């Protein structure tokens, strides 16, 4: 599987460029690499050709959202927040980690991570 590298800073810019070139957003895949880092794979599609962009990110830092560029990205970004606990900034439709989970639960777990970490925004301040 061939893929290109991308960083947090170039994500939006690259997204705008792909959109102008007529690419369609397909989905984002999130994988857990180890205790501290995750990998996001962005899939785009044009005329049945699919291209992949990879990005390695730490678990506790928020990510820029792609949904202002591709509206369709909001659903999968909310799903990743539910399952892996990465917070996406500027989501066009933010479910706040309750896409699948109940909103009255005290959500601190990240169900799809083998190495359970606390969500970045729910870690209590150091006393």
């Amino acid at each position, binding site marked *: 599987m061939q893929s290109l590298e991308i960083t947090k800073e170039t994500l939006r810019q690259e997204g705008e460029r792909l959109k102008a070139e007529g690419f369609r957003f397909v*989905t984002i895949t999130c994988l857990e690499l180890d205790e501290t880092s995750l990998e996001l794979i962005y899939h785009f599609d044009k005329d049945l050709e699919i291209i992949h962009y990879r990005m390695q990110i730490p678990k506790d830092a928020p990510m820029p959202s792609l949904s202002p560029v591709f509206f369709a990205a909001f659903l999968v970004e909310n799903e990743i927040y539910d399952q892996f606990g990465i917070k996406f900034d500027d989501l066009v439709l933010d479910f706040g980690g309750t896409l699948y989970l109940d909103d009255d639960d005290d959500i601190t777990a990240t169900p799809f991570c083998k190495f359970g970490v606390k969500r970045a925004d729910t870690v209590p301040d150091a006393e």
Partner: protein
Amino acid sequence: MSKTIVPFGPQHPVLPEPIHLSLTVEDEVVKEAVPAFGYVHRGLEKLAEKRDFHQMIQVVERVCGICSMIHAMCYCQGLEHLMKVEVPRRGQFLRVIWSELHRIHSHLLWLGLYADAFGFESVFMQFWKIRERIMDINEATAGNRVIVSVNQVGGVRRDLSPSKCDWILDELNHVEKEVKALESTMSNNYTVKKRTVGKGILTREMAYELGAAGPTLRASGIAQDMRQLQYEAFDELDFEPVVETDGDAFARGLVRFKETIQSIDLVRQAIARLPQGDTFVKVKGKPEGEVVQRVEQPRGECLYYIKANGTKFLDRLRIRTPTFANIPPLAAMLPGMELADVPVLILSIDPCISCTER
């Protein structure tokens, strides 16, 4: 007029599966629609850590009952790619036959539900009566009615005898005759047109940009069908994607209706060209590496991402189902529509919520 928020679902007569929509309504006209999920989430992707990669075939079949064969086929294609196995030609043709039978019965089910959504009960019963023939074919050839479990890594588990093939062709003739008898109803009936023409329009640009998939995309005039990738035996079969240009609920119904007839033709072609030989190859070893595999399901394009690490358990299995891609277009097409049209429009994307949440 002040704004009212009308909750729609999770339990609603028109919905076969639970999804909730908060509709902001002004004078019977929807201004905003916000979907909410989480009623059928089962965490099947996570189960890949507990079941070995052979057992996962039966698990991914249960992501969505109605396109179970195609889910399992996509998953097996991905693993065959990783393990460098080539399915024998006969196995590839048999996969096409069963996957197209699945497409037929899924579309017939949807056409029935769709007719039911705008209150055309007799058409609903007609379509479901026809569908029963396809269910019988599934049970007689594969063993089960819906979740047929015919796939294995390296091929298919069942074979078709020549007499079975003749019987399938005979049954399909009946199915085609009965479906075509309903053609004028679906394409020219006053009631159907009144409820669907001009409702929920997705323009070509909108559908493409919002990432719509399958019939929802093709009804907006974009000829994109993953079967054009020529996986399995589709390279030998004559096939043109069905396209409509209006982009409304009526066009989406018409695309699915025409695809039903097209799939009947594809099964006939596949049976006519069915080669002799083995149906599967034995696989040895464990998968390693990562792969993205795409197939066309009745509801649209489905993407599987598989990462394997050389053990019998997969590292990560990610499934992007077609309805997941069709939710943003749904949220975009509802504003401006009347509240009474919302049920028909929700059904017009053929929602499969079990797929969406997995």
